[in-house]
């Protein structure tokens, strides 16, 4: 558990303050195929179907991402 938290904090620290991608370079990141859970209906239906036969529902992640423009 502590290792996982460390990994997440490290990932965050790597991202903070670093110009990994400039705004002018986000053309591909803004494409719909690069957005996590771009189709919320599909995501919820998938989880709904799986939770009736798998004991590990939930916690897949959150939608968004891509261009990083909240």
């Amino acid at each position, binding site marked *: 558990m502590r290792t996982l938290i460390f990994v997440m904090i490290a990932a965050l620290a790597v991202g903070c303050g670093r110009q990994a991608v400039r705004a002018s370079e986000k053309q591909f990141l803004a494409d719909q195929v690069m957005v*996590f859970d771009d189709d919320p209906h599909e995501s919820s239906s998938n989880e709904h179907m799986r939770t009736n036969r798998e004991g590990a529902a939930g916690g897949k992640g959150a939608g968004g991402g891509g261009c990083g423009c909240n």
Partner: protein
Amino acid sequence: MTSSLVALAVVAAVPSIASADDRTEVSTVLFVEQREGGKGGLVVVHPQASFGIDLGRFVTFDLAYAADVVSGATATVYQVDAISTATKFDDFRNEATMSLGFQGRRSRITFSGTFGTERDYLSRQLGGTASIDLPGRNTTVGVAYTHGFDQVCNKDNGMATPLESKALVGDDQCEKPGIVAGKDTAGVTKWEGLSIDTAQVTITQNLSPTMNLQFALFGQIQEGFQSNPYRRVRIGPNSPQEHIPDTRNRWSFSARLNRYLPKLKAAVHFDARFYNDSWEIYSGNVELAYSQYLGKSLLLRIHSRVYQQTAAKFFKDAFFYETESTAGEYFTGDRELAPVRNVAFGGKLAIISIGGEKPVWGLFDKLQLLAKGEIMLFDALPADADNPMGTDKQFIYGSSFIDAVSIQLGLLGNY
């Protein structure tokens, strides 16, 4: 059906960090699971509709509705008794969600409420999500929390011990005066409480102009009645209601990666997840997908997924319950708590229309017609070593190659 609503409550418990776009979507999923002749099956029609709009510059409002129309049959699966008659059932559930969001230049916070109802279950949830883009706008941190205060209709077993408790049956009345709360019917049914607290932290990171990554850490505490009130477990000569612990603590960690391939106008997607809970279920899944643009208006995605889990610590094979009689403090025949492996393959086609100066259908900036199909293969794994009558030998999945199929059709519009 109760278990499916618990499941949906779990799914809905951490709402997605919503897109800033105004969007509306309608879709329907048809799910068909076929089991070996005479041992039941399941058909679910799952329509959804959602609508989101900006109220001025800083406020968003979202409404969503989902339903389940379920019909099927559940077999008594203990082949020891050679009971193969399936019990038919059908159910109809409704769920509505309302969200209010506030967005700034780099941050967003959303509050939501969800209410779901069906014959034997009431789901009520309040929650919120918040996300912020860190300086550089390459890192997004999101947090989410929900509290569910659900109610499950159970048989009124009075002071009976677990081994004496009877299961709920379809004819038992589950009263819901005023819809939002259940009312006990003395000597017949009793509404049990179930509290679900869920929290999630996500970090989404742009790694390069063509690659992004997301980590998610999920935790959940479930406290209250979690058995399926209808499910019976044969223990020696008796068939008491399933009895499982009231407390379940769950957590998972997942990582997802997208990589765009500009020369191919395509993208590859990778998803991996590890899960564990206080019932000692360990599971993992890996998913791979590939998206390919075909011309300007077609997008094809193919995907595959493998999932495997261990059994809950109190899960015993039906053969064990039947022959050993002493089941222990808890007993269940729930396949979600059994050792299983699932494999799925599927494809999705999106027909995309982008409006230029003239909106599509006079309204949408972008409109997508979506069609998706998936096949699923289920494999029950041995719960006990060297058991010739083990769950893997007798369980419900048939001898056919494909165990279930789902088809989804949808229309998604951004305006």
